[in-house]
């Protein structure tokens, strides 16, 4: 069954058609990859799914609900998590606090409750601290718990951002080029993490340039070029499709 269905999705930026009538579905508990050259509209598609920019036309159905009419900040609570191409961690918060922000949508203490330091707020605070520590433990970031997130090395910043996104307990996790800037060893670690996340029941939609990784982990691949979908199918078929090879991989790319 599909968790996410995208119908005729189009985005215009002042006359430039960044995404042009794109349709695809993402099956539950699968890893679906979107590939394509720079400027193909991959990040724009991600933005529309995660609420950062409304589509010009088309619809996005997630878990049976139309997303384009939902307020952008409510998508997180509905089960959509997002990791950015360049990690957007909060550099002035500690590593632990970054993950605690991930529990925002699951907690309720408002301005008055926190200002008055009410017991219910303290209980909630202790609870999410525990939860956040568990997430850090999963990602081997426990020893950096108190450091400012901005001081972490790049690879760990990316892991922290994924840990933070998982704290929101997403049904669908959007990963935008997660291996960009990572060393081969770090990429390997991350690849295994992604598989673990999928196995624990989270559906993954990934934009990625590292094709050997894409072909080894994904169940389904969507190829975009100039905002249009030019092909989709299982990895084995994508790497043999001549149109895809022309547009993106190059004739000598994969032998």
């Amino acid at each position: 069954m599909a968790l996410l269905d995208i119908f005729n999705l189009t985005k215009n930026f002042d006359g430039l058609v960044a995404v042009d009538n794109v349709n695809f579905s993402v099956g539950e508990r699968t890893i679906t990859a979107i590939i394509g050259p720079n400027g193909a509209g991959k990040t724009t598609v991600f933005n529309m799914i995660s609420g950062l920019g409304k589509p010009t036309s088309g619809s996005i159905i997630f878990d049976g609900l139309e997303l384009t009419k939902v307020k952008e900040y409510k998508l997180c609570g509905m089960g959509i998590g997002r990791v950015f191409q360049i990690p957007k961690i909060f550099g002035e918060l500690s590593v632990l606090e970054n993950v605690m922000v991930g529990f925002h949508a699951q907690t309720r203490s408002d301005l008055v409750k926190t200002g008055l330091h009410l017991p219910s707020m303290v209980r909630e605070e202790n609870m999410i601290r525990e939860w956040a520590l568990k997430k850090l433990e999963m990602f081997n970031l426990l020893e950096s718990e108190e450091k400012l997130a901005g001081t972490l090395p790049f690879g760990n910043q990316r892991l922290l951002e994924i840990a933070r996104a998982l704290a929101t307990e997403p049904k669908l996790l959007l990963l935008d080029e997660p291996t960009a800037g990572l060393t081969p060893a770090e990429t390997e670690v991350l690849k295994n993490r992604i598989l673990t996340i999928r196995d624990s029941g989270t559906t993954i939609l990934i934009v990625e340039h590292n094709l050997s990784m894409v072909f080894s982990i994904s169940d389904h691949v969507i190829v975009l070029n100039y905002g249009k979908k030019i092909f989709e199918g299982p990895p084995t078929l994508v790497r043999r499709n001549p149109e895809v090879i022309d547009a993106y991989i190059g004739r000598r790319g994969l032998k």
Partner: protein
Amino acid sequence: MITIRLLLRGLFHKRILTGVGIGVLLVFPFIFSREYLINVSIFTGIFVVLLVGLSLFIGHVGQFSFAQAAFYGMGAYTSSLLTTRLGVAVWLGFLAAGALPGLTAYAIGSLTLRLRGYYLAMVTLALCGIFHVFVTEQYSITGGPSGVYGIPPLSFGKIRVESAASYHYVVWTIAVLSLIFSRNITKSRVGRALKAIEGSEDAATVLGIDVSGYKIKIFTLTGVSAGIAGSLFAHYVTYIAPGNFTLDLSIWLVVILAIGGVRNISGVVMGAGFTTIFPFLLGPYQKYNMLVFGIILVLVLMFLPGGITGVIGRKIEGAKAKLLV
């Protein structure tokens, strides 16, 4: 040696500093019985209340507002007019003085803070101008340029706050409570959300944070706290006029936070104290105040980004680290 170390560590401890501060406030009217020194303390307290919301808005949301003088004036005029013209109980006037600027801030914030960028800063500049023209021109309501006089002292039921010393305690109770309130906010779920918004609005949004909602709430808080400060001011001086609430004051408040350090409570207290004693410091050279102030601002921005308390905070952290070795 060890005792000296322990003593130094103790002095650097925030709780002890806070305790010493509150102790000084408690005995202040007994030690400094001269009216003008108590005035300094009262006005500092009023400025703390006036700055506390603004410091959250600038330091934790990353937005600017020049509406503070208008909200301050709105609070002062609301409780003055309600109590002198309509004979409303002072405590009710005091509450209304917090509510009206709060509602105004909510309305303005709802209209402008949904947009990205610094539109609010521009709108608040205009608000200050409009407020000033309104209170100056609407003679029949506000008394025009001659202002409102004969404002009764603060009273809660039968308890009247008349002496300067008792006013000192009332003002500082409200000031300390508002500082605690704002500190609690910054150390909590809401504070993290605000820092997240300042860090990246996109990242905050995908984590479920209502970015414009929080901006509007904190802006509303700037209105409420300024209104309360305005009411405290009016019922103490018993006479207010449009000249107390000009755009100059709004700009001064934003700048003084930049100098004091916008991120922490000591920056707010320092800014408030400096605002009160600055005219005294210059003495006969009053007319050069803007020049001196400008030079201080430029020097702070060049050499102490993060403000004076930001730098002191870092020095203390450094000294602590050395002492603990």
